[in-house]
């Protein structure tokens, strides 16, 4: 079922959690809302669920305006970061809850409920835990039960709020692959919130990057990673180095080195910041058109070597990734001075670069 969010705004006191946000989600899609904490991504999810009422804007599910509808009548499945299982009920009763609270006329029979619950527990591969209580389960198991419970009401859409946020790294990786497979099986329109870029890029069909209550970019994982639309997205997805330069008629000048910037064809001599991924920085022999830097650290990680350098002129830290064989051919050691030249860059004009450590 499709979800359409139109010009939604939401304030908490003076804090603007969402500012005029619009988003379309296609039926059967798995979408990630990605952003730093406090960016408004969870608020957006709660607005779709009906747990928050937007100050302005509309929410449509399957073409129907649900903005005014009570959360209990929306038929959304919701998975909480901290599971929110009913602690005094068994796993079976937890999953059965959504069916048991239905009005008598539409409530399934006892046997039907039992069958449905057991089949859901099998789907999440935990049918052997039916008689346990939530506190007897591990975090990963609890989250799968929470998912089974959300699916029991046959929701129109599934919403997950940082579903793996409280789990340790290994379980988190397992569970997100499992979620992806599950989604491919049941094809339920799903939206999940995360602050982990790796998680969003690995699991989602499309990624929505949210910052300060606004949507920065929407696209496939490949899209947003390779073609970030804004400086924020560039910094948020993957590591990035910033170089100051100038752009003139489609040609950029970074420390005397010329690079193509075709998107700024019409721009005449403007200050610009070059955003360069670590693997797009070259280490060259001494030359006028390069930046001198000292090697601080070199760490070999499998087939690549990650170098951390500090620029001689500004002291800024630059990260460089080199193929291992190339690094070995170069005779670089810590403390040595080398020369950096961006090979490929994306330019943003007149942006004052935020000097945060890239996430």
């Amino acid at each position, binding site marked *: 079922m499709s979800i359409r969010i139109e010009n939604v705004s939401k304030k908490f006191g003076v804090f603007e959690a969402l500012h005029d946000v619009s988003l379309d989600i296609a039926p059967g899609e798995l979408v990630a809302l990605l952003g730093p904490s406090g960016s408004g991504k969870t608020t957006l999810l709660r607005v779709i669920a009906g747990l928050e009422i937007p100050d302005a804007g509309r929410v449509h599910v399957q073409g129907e305006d649900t903005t005014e509808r009570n959360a*209990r009548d929306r038929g959304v499945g919701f998975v909480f970061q901290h599971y*929110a299982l009913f602690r005094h009920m068994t796993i079976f009763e937890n999953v059965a809850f959504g069916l048991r609270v239905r009005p008598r006329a539409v409530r399934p029979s006892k046997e039907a409920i039992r069958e449905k619950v057991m089949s859901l527990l099998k789907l999440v591969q935990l049918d052997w835990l039916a008689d346990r209580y939530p506190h007897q389960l591990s975090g990963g198991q609890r989250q799968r039960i929470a998912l089974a419970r959300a699916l029991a009401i046959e929701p129109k859409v599934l919403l997950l709020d940082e579903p793996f946020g409280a789990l340790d790294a290994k379980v988190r990786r397992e569970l997100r692959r499992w979620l992806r497979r599950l989604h491919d099986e049941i094809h339920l329109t799903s939206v999940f919130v995360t602050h982990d870029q790796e998680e969003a890029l690995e699991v989602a069909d499309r990624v929505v990057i949210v910052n300060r209550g606004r949507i920065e970019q929407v696209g496939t994982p490949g899209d947003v990673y390779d073609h970030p639309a804004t400086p924020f997205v560039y910094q948020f997805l993957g590591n990035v180095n910033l170089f100051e330069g100038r752009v003139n008629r489609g040609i950029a000048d970074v420390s005397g080195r010329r690079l193509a910037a075709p998107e700024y064809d019409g721009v005449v001599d403007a200050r610009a910041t070059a955003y360069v991924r670590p693997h797009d920085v070259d280490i060259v022999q001494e030359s006028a058109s390069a930046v001198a830097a000292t090697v601080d650290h070199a760490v070999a990680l499998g087939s690549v070597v990650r170098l951390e350098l500090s620029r001689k002129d500004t002291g800024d830290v630059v990260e460089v990734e080199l193929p291992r064989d190339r690094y070995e051919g170069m005779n670089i050691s810590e403390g040595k001075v080398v020369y950096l030249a961006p090979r490929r860059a994306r330019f943003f004009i007149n942006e004052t670069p935020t000097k945060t450590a890239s996430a």
Partner: protein
Amino acid sequence: MAAVLDRAVSGAAPRERRRRFAWAPALLVGAALAYLALFLFAPLAAVFYEALRKGWDVYAAAISESDAWAAVRLTLLAAGIAVPANLAFGIAAAWTIAKFDFRGKSLLVTLIDLPFSVSPVVSGLIYVLVFGLQGWLGPWLSEHDAKVIFAVPGIVLATIFVTFPFVARELIPLMQAQGRDEEEAAVLLGANAWQLLWRVTLPNVKWGLIYGVILCTARAMGEFGAVSVVSGHIRGMTNTLPLHIEILYNEYQFTAAFACASLLAILALVTLALKTWVEWRQAKETP
């Protein structure tokens, strides 16, 4: 108690240190026990000793006397109304305070604590000022032939006022600690407000609720100050058990006074046993 302490110390510290510091816990435990013996156990024993000093027959006669029975009935009636009323109020107040944000929330919390901070005598006087003959509503009430002060309604009102923080105070921190997630989950699964209350909210605070009710009941039956002001001390009519005991004592009927006091003491012991049992169950069920 000493055994528990000993085990704790030997588990935590090496043998040498244990020997050196053994006198400190022994001294503290001894002091605490002596204090308890002097100020709690001795008076409690005295109540039963005085009550039974003239024999079982006198004791039985004292507590089966008609005025005494009237006092017991009135005490049970007042508690029987005050406790359910405060149970309903306590749940509603705790739910509102713990789960919703609204203007004046901290004012409400302060108001709930008011009976704890106000002297019971003052609480009683407030009712006299409002409902008494010279009070704000007094003339209107007497026109309609309704009597609140020096009558049962006044006693019930005073008891409700004095005991109303107990349930709410017990539930508010518990509900706040549990957060809103489970309730939000229940709502999204289609539960209505009634199902939410009975299937999610109340089962989660079950033991805190029972604990609050026990404390509330104990206080409702033992309340003296506020009830004393509004009661008027009419024998067999507006005397609760604590008031009845005071009258007997003032009339030098010591044995009868202590006999009735022993009823309250037994009640206190039962409350204590229930409270301990609830705490034990709670500890067992909480993961």
